[in-house]
């Protein structure tokens, strides 16, 4: 059904586009919100994405890849909004921020969701996007590579650094649980 809507919308049928928009907007908005952590920025990113889809849909050669394309657009729009707004910008960690007493096998408990929110906000928009695509959208490395139009090796590397940056950001936030271990 979605493919048929994509074909008809690509031909310029506004009602098909309206139906396609209602079908896909929820998950696109959810991804934008989780990257931006801001309702209004996410709305702007979604609106920009939907307009771009309307304008550029005829150039999508393989209509079965509409979802990958839509995800790519929403990620780009979210990253652009984040850069434009500069809210929640990543704070570069100083060398001494990470707790030197934590060993290689130790990881502090994230008991406070606010702590995770603060740690996540310290990441760059690109790092947040890749974590959201993997952990929320459930995409594999190959699917993320296809969505973002980058090699799979680059995805693996960015994911590694994003995870490492999040861990360092959580440690730097400095609010560990008393027992110091994840459940």
């Amino acid at each position, binding site marked *: 059904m979605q493919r048929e809507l994509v074909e008809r919308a690509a031909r310029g049928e*506004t009602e098909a586009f*309206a139906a396609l928009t209602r079908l896909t907007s929820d998950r696109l908005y959810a991804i934008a919100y989780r990257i931006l952590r801001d309702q209004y920025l996410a709305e702007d990113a979604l609106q920009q994405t*939907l307009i771009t889809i309307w304008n550029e849909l005829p*150039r999508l*050669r393989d209509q079965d890849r509409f979802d990958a394309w839509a995800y790519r657009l929403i990620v780009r729009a979210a990253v652009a909004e984040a850069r434009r707004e500069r809210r929640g910008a990543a704070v570069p960690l100083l060398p001494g921020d990470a707790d030197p007493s934590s060993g*290689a096998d130790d990881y502090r408990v994230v008991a406070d969701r606010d702590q995770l929110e603060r740690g996540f906000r310290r990441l760059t928009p690109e790092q947040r996007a890749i974590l959201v695509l993997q952990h929320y959208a459930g995409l594999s490395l190959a699917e993320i590579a296809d969505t973002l139009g980058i090699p799979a090796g*680059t995805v*693996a590397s960015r994911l590694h650094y994003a995870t490492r940056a999040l861990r360092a950001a959580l440690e730097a936030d400095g609010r560990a649980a008393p027992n110091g271990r994840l459940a």
Partner: protein
Amino acid sequence: MTDRAMTDLDRVLGDWLADGPSRAPDRVVDAAIEHCRSHPRRPDPFAFLRSDVLAARRSALALQPAFALVALGLLLVAIVAFAAGSRRDEAPVVVPPLPTPSATRPPTPSPTVAAVHVVLPDELGKTVTVDVVDESGALVSARAGLQSEEGDIPEVPHGIGAANAPNDPTVLRLTWADGPCESAGVLSIDAAARSFVLVKPACTGDSLGVGRVIVLTFSRPVPATGVTATLDETP
């Protein structure tokens, strides 16, 4: 970071991201629909020449296959016409038939080595691994090496030494001093195969260091003198 710690972070992150709004505001959706109704798309006769929105980024000089073939065909015809006009006494030049553009999938990014998992030998039975992540597309293979077999490799205190195999610039050997700890590292190779960054957990203690060697084979020469190798040990 151990596998368990990574799994715990994945689980916590997944649970946390699952919370949050999952419904787009109606006013945003309605505004987009109203936009398409008030801005009907005009027919584009040159749509077939425009690049696929999902195509990998190309240089500004890259041409679409159909347009490139048309341009090539016109060029061949011009060459033939010129040759026929200047050499009337010679046998006619046979113009090879133009290849018919067929419907093909838009070019997708070339797959690169996503990650090569290398298990390094350890006399104490520790599990020591390195995932090699290559962005250059030139990596053919990665394997563990033994310092005793690989010969002279410059030792760099608190860093990584790099050297080519004797008489083979396509083989690059990296070595570093490690401790007797289990670890899972990631070796990233940049697109130019000049920057090599090994990220691994630090192994502290008073034990004697253990020499680790990883042997990388590329499809083209990678001179060790042009390589920057960095060891980044995380707490």
